[in-house]
């Protein structure tokens, strides 16, 4: 029955070796969503599929007269991006994570990457947000941390779809990398997204200039205000504020 909850549809067959799949669903500061969308736009990625579910709100996005699915899959060469126009509804977090990783497993990719913000209450005092990495294997974390000497994410909670994707990747033995950047909790944060894009460009050896992202930061914040409000509501439903806490240590 569960396969009916979430459906992944490939409008163009997604095949190939060494695929790298980047997920950027909306959550903290919309960091992952901004970074993945910017990357897809600047690299000229094309829509090759979508993710659908009866648990998604019954609406369609229309952009420049084109009807769009809410959660889309983009591709250019061996790079794929998963982008959503809506926050993942709390009841859908687990089924969608399981379905995505089941689909990912079938693709035998080189790497699955999930992007997010790490809430930083003192963000206003930070000129350049720090980037953190956590891999599903210690060796993957070490390899990722060597790029640009970024920090390792060692303690804390990862709540919601990002955490579930990482856990599913870990359980299935798929190389999964969580990339986080210090961010405002509930304000769109293009500055934080820019740091993630810069890091990704180095890690994946692709050329992408973040200057246009930083230059359009104010406009982007205004455009994404409604999505941020919706995302804030969804984050309350999954205890996202728990990311400001540390897991208990008993010994």
């Amino acid at each position, binding site marked *: 029955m569960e396969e009916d909850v979430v459906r992944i549809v490939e409008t163009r067959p997604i095949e190939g070796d060494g695929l790298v799949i980047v997920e950027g669903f909306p959550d903290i500061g919309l960091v992952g969503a901004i970074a993945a969308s910017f990357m897809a736009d600047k690299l000229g990625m094309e829509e090759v599929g979508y993710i659908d579910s009866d648990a998604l709100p019954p609406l369609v996005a229309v952009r420049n007269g084109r009807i769009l699915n809410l959660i889309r899959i983009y591709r250019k060469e061996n790079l794929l991006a998963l982008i959503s126009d809506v926050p993942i509804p709390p009841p859908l977090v687990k089924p969608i994570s399981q379905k995505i990783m089941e689909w990912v497993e079938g693709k035998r990719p080189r790497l699955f990457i999930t992007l997010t913000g790490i809430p930083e209450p003192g963000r206003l005092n930070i000129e350049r947000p720090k980037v953190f990495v956590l891999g599903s294997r210690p060796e993957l974390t070490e390899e990722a941390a060597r790029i640009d000497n970024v920090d390792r994410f060692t303690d804390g909670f990862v709540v919601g779809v990002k955490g579930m994707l990482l856990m599913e990747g870990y359980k299935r033995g798929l190389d999964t990398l969580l990339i986080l950047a210090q961010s405002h909790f509930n*304000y*769109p944060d293009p*500055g934080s997204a820019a740091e993630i894009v810069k890091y990704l460009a180095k890690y994946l050896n692709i050329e992408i200039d973040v200057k246009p992202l930083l230059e359009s*930061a104010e*406009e982007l*914040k*205004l455009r994404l205000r409604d999505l941020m409000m919706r995302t804030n509501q969804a984050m309350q*439903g999954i205890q996202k504020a728990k990311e400001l806490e540390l897991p208990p240590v008993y010994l």
Partner: protein
Amino acid sequence: MLRRRPWWRVLLEEFRAIEEEMQRFEEEFMRRIKEAEAMRGCIIPLYNIYESGDEVILTADMPGVNKEEIDLRVGEDYVRVEAPCRSALRPGQKYLLHIKLPSKIDPSTVRARYREGVLEIVAKKKVAGVRVKVE
């Protein structure tokens, strides 16, 4: 003959009811903000209020504002911010935020700064009472 529903179905239905209630609340919240904005021709900024020790900290996300044009007024228990939004996306619109503070503050201690589209206001709480020696 009446059959009892299995416990898991009862639980599932309860969760669904809670979920639907949350969705209704979210829709109501969004509708009220959007209607208020349309009626007043203003933008209500996203904001946070924290209480930290003897301070109250308010931040508001207000991209596209000239710092010099921010009209900030504070009282013992409220903050009011008004500023024109200079973004081409919202021509002629202004930000307007008027909120009651969770604790009384001393307005003479208020300091504010505007950075990367975010306004931060920090105020000392109004302290009343007497000092008590701890034994």
